[in-house]
Each structure stands twice: as C-alpha cells, then as structure tokens.
C-alpha cells in the first residue's frame, strides 16, 4: 500500500518534471526546416489552432465550476498548465487590483463575452481556428471568431494611422521565423477570461516558427510599462487543422451577445 502510494506520487512528480521540461523545449525552435513557398520563404499557409486553455487563464489553473451553474459540466472551466514563461505575470503593484476586479466580474466585463474584436495575442489562442494566407508583400490572418482579421505588412515598416482593436502589424523573416511587431493596440481588449489586461501602451512581438509539418511554435513577448514591471512571454504550439477541406466558417457572434447587451431594452410583453 505504502509503496503503491509512493510509486504513484513518484510517477506524478516524474510526469510533472517531464511536462515542465517539455514546455521550454517547445519554446526552443527544434532543428526543423520548413517547406518553402514558390518565392522561397518558409511556408506558414494553413488553418491553425491552439489546443490549450489560455483563453480561460494564461496562467496555470485547476478545473473550476463554470460561470453558469445550470450548464453543469459542459461549460465548467477546463484545467491547464498555463502558457506564461515562469507562470508569473509581472503586474505593477498598482495594477493588480484591476486584474482582480476584472476576474471577479469577467462574465459581464470580458470583451469576448460581448463579441468584441479580440486583439493580439488573444486572437491566436481563442478556441477557434485561424487561417494564414501568405503572400510576398503581406500576410493576411483571418480569425474565425467575430470575423477578426489583420494584414501583416512585410515591406518597409509602416506607421499605424490610429489605434485599433487588432493593432498594426509589421513583419519580417528571421531564418524560418516570422517575427511580427504589433503596436497601436487599444486598451479595450483583455488577454483571457481571468481578467488579465493591458493599457494602450501594449507592444507585442510575436514569433511564428515551424516546428514540424503540422505544428508551429507561437511566442509572444508582451510589454506594457503602464501595467507590467518588465516584458513577459507566452509560448504555445499551434496545430494545423489537417482534416480534409478544413475551412473557416462564420462565427458572427453579435447575435449571441445581443441579449446580454440589449436585453433590458426589449419591449415588455403587453399585459
């Protein structure tokens, strides 16, 4: 009995160590050379999706009761090991209270609940696929959620005409890695349902690195001196949707959010 217990504890500890070891391993681009496009660039074309729970909480979290008790096990919070390097988000002392307040009230405050555009990096790890359409001059990323989209300029970097929900993206290649510099992001988006947030000073540098025929490694370095004491990093694999004829479909979620946003203004049924 005793030995069975200690064995299983040991097995658990070993598994945890292996998992922890695997995470930074995923972050380091393995020696894999991506197939090339006709113009000789690494070919990132495809429909991709994250397979994790970062949209619930970037940091490690246990499973928890969902926000709508009547939905029982279906919409409970799924557990996850987290995608933040070191599992710590370095909030400035003055910024912590807002994170907590956001988290406590996320079902009404989270912009995703209202079907608002998700911003970067959240668009990448929503529980929806997105598609990369890669050209010589630019790369279009179309996200299924809310029909969000952005076009990454690969030419000489250009300046944003103004702040926007999806920001302004300038990209370049570093070996097999697509590096995207994202600026001019509005302060109205969040990182997850756990209320992790940022200000309009957010600056995101993304790195997309092919790691096998059907996986990419995604890294985002997040910098926001108004909210965080130092830059911090998230990383995760993205998986190719390999099913035949995979396709982005419409997820025009406005109509799903109308009851929440306008329900109180409906005509009361006449008595």
């Amino acid at each position, binding site marked *: 009995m005793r030995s069975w217990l200690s064995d299983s504890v040991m097995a658990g500890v070993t598994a945890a160590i292996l998992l922890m070891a695997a995470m930074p391993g995923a972050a380091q681009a393995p020696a894999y050379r991506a197939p090339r*496009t*006709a*113009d000789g660039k690494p*070919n990132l*074309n495809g429909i991709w999706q994250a397979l994790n729970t970062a949209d619930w909480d970037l940091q490690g979290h246990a499973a928890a009761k969902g926000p709508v008790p009547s939905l029982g096990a279906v919409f409970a919070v799924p557990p996850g090991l987290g995608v933040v390097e070191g599992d710590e988000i370095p909030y400035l002392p003055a910024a912590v209270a807002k994170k907590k307040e956001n988290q406590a009230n996320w079902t009404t405050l989270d912009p995703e609940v209202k*079907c*608002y*555009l998700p911003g970067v990096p959240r668009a990448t790890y929503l529980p929806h696929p997105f*598609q*990369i*359409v*890669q*050209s*010589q*001059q*630019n*790369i*279009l990323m*179309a996200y299924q959620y*809310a*029909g*969000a*989209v952005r*076009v990454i300029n690969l030419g000489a970097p*250009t300046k944003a*005409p*103004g702040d*926007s*929900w*999806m920001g302004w993206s300038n990209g370049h290649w570093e070996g097999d890695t697509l590096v995207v510099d994202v600026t001019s992001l509005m302060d*109205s988006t969040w990182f997850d349902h756990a209320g992790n947030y940022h200000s309009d000073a957010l600056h995101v540098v993304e790195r997309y690195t092919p790691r096998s025929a059907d996986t990419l490694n995604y890294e985002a370095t997040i910098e926001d001196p108004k909210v965080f004491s130092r830059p911090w990093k998230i990383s995760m694999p993205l998986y190719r949707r390999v099913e035949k*004829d995979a*396709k*982005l*479909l*419409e997820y*025009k979620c*406005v*109509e799903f959010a*109308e009851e929440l*946003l*306008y329900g109180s*203004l*409906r*005509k009361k049924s006449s008595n």
Partner: protein
Amino acid sequence: MSRRLLVSTAALAAVILVAPLAQTPAAGQTPSSAAKATTAGKAWTTPRTPDGKPDLQGIWSDNTLTPFERPKRLGAKEFYSDQELAELTKRVREGRQGEEVEGAELGAANPQAIRYDLEVYGFDRTKLRYTSNRTSLIIGPEGVVPPMLPQARERNAAMAAKLKGHEFDGPEQRSLSERCILLNQIRIPMTPAANEGNLLQIVQGPGYVSLLHEIDHSTRVIPTDGRAHVPQSIRLWQGDSVGHWEGNTLVVDTTNFTSLSAYRGSSDKLHLVERFTRAADDTMIYQFTVDDPTTWAKPWTAEIPWTKTKGPVYEWACHEGNTMISTILHGARVEEEAAQKKGK
C-alpha cells in the same frame, strides 16, 4: 417626434463613424473603361504570383458614378460615347453640392447628405468619376433588375407584414446593417456603397484568394482547389464561397445563404457567380451573375470596374461602437412609457 430625433441622431453618429475613413480612388488616375483596357492593353499581360496564378492582389476601390440601373429614358443604350461621358462628368463636377444629375450615382454627395460638410470628410464631388462608358452597372439590353416574380413579392410582403408594428420590439427586429451583422455595403455580390465606396484588399496564398472588405472588416478566404460547397444544412450570412481559375479569371461560386441575408429580395436559393479579371495594372473587372429562380425569371449580370488605389485599409469596427441599437430601443421604451402615462 422623440423617436425620429433619436433615430436620426443614431444615423448621424453612423455617418460620422464611417466618414473620416473615406477614400477616393488615387487622384490623377484617368478613367479606363473595360473596353479601353482590353483594346489598349495588347502589350499588357496579367501579372502572376510566384506560383503562377493570375495576381489579383492590391487595394481596390469600386467607387464610380455609374448608376446600378439604367435611367429609363436611355432605353437599350448600353454605352455612352466618350463625349457624352465627358459632358456628364462635367455636370457632376460643376454641380452645386447636393444637386442631382440623372445618370450619375453621387453616393455620399447625394442630396440626402448635404447637411454634412462633405469636403471635411473627403467627399469632394470634383473628384467623382465614371469608371467605364456603361450607362448602368447591370449589363445587357434591359440594364435593370428583372421584375420580381409574384411568389417572391408575396414572400417579401409577408415578411414585411410580420415585422409591421414590431420594428422597435428588440434587436432582432432591427436591420442586419444596424446590428452590425451584415452591413448593406458588405453584402455579396459587392456593389459600390452609398457612403464612401468600398476599399477591397486582395491577398493571395497558394490555393487561396482572400478578400478583405474594409467595411466591417468582412473577409472571405476562398479556396481555389476545386472543392465542393459545405453541406446544404450549413447556412451562412455571407454564403459559402468556392473558387477556381478559368484562364486569367478567378471564378467564385457562392451558395448556402441564409433566408435573412437576401440580396435585393432574393431567397436562400440565391446562387451567385463572381468573376475577377485584371484588365490593366490599375483596373480589375468585377462581374457577377445573380440567379434565384424563386425570385427572378432569369439570371442577371452586372459589371463593375475596380480601380487600384492606395491604402491603408483601416480597421472598421462596427459592433464594438454600436450605440445605435440601444439608443433606438431606449427611445422606443421611453415613448411607450410616455404614451401609457398619457393614457391613464
């Protein structure tokens, strides 16, 4: 009165929202008609992408003075002479703000819009132009949308009757455009929009052509690998688009529309074929054929030259800043309450 005031305030807010993003085709470009482009373009060859497909990429504007339907008095006249076109253009450009010109689609410079300072928003009527010699965007001897079949008129009348008296009950009774679900300007097929015209950006990757419409960031990623449509049970606001290449032309076939995203009174049987052909460095010919046997006795076709223009394409977020629905519904509730008090 209060409702009217609220509604028009909301409409004004919408115009202000979109207006600063107005774009006109790059100045200095001469109008090139489809006919001109093909005859003068002998030495011109369609550019290719690195994988050998016709290159449709760039930022395009479909702004034009050509009206959708042909003015009645022109009968079967499909084309203006160059001289007639020059005279019409002159009348538009020299016209007073708000003055209508028959045979010209003024868009934002129309009389309804004169309460705004059009120059501030870039709607300068001296920049307006025709993009072909056509007298209407709809091609063929009729130049107008065919008469609607009786069954379609009945269907649409029944829908309108159902809504009557309930227009302000809740968000679902408001238009798809107001709700930021399907703006009139982004409906497929794509036709020049009343306000600022459309900016369309095309980005091509191997096996796909993506089409980003600036208005409401509406995007279609169209596969060109010859696959079939998604199952008929899946109905989509923008339909399901699949494409293939025919010579230098991209042909896009769209079905699976919802019954609510009807185009000009069509039903969910709408079948749309769009054809994209580069005609010159600065010109794309966009042609579409609309077929719906439950609405029209025969298919009909329109052709719109697109002009290459400069970006940037702005982010056009709609739902995120939509105060129109709550303002309209709130106004209706206030009015009902006032009426109830008065009645007591």
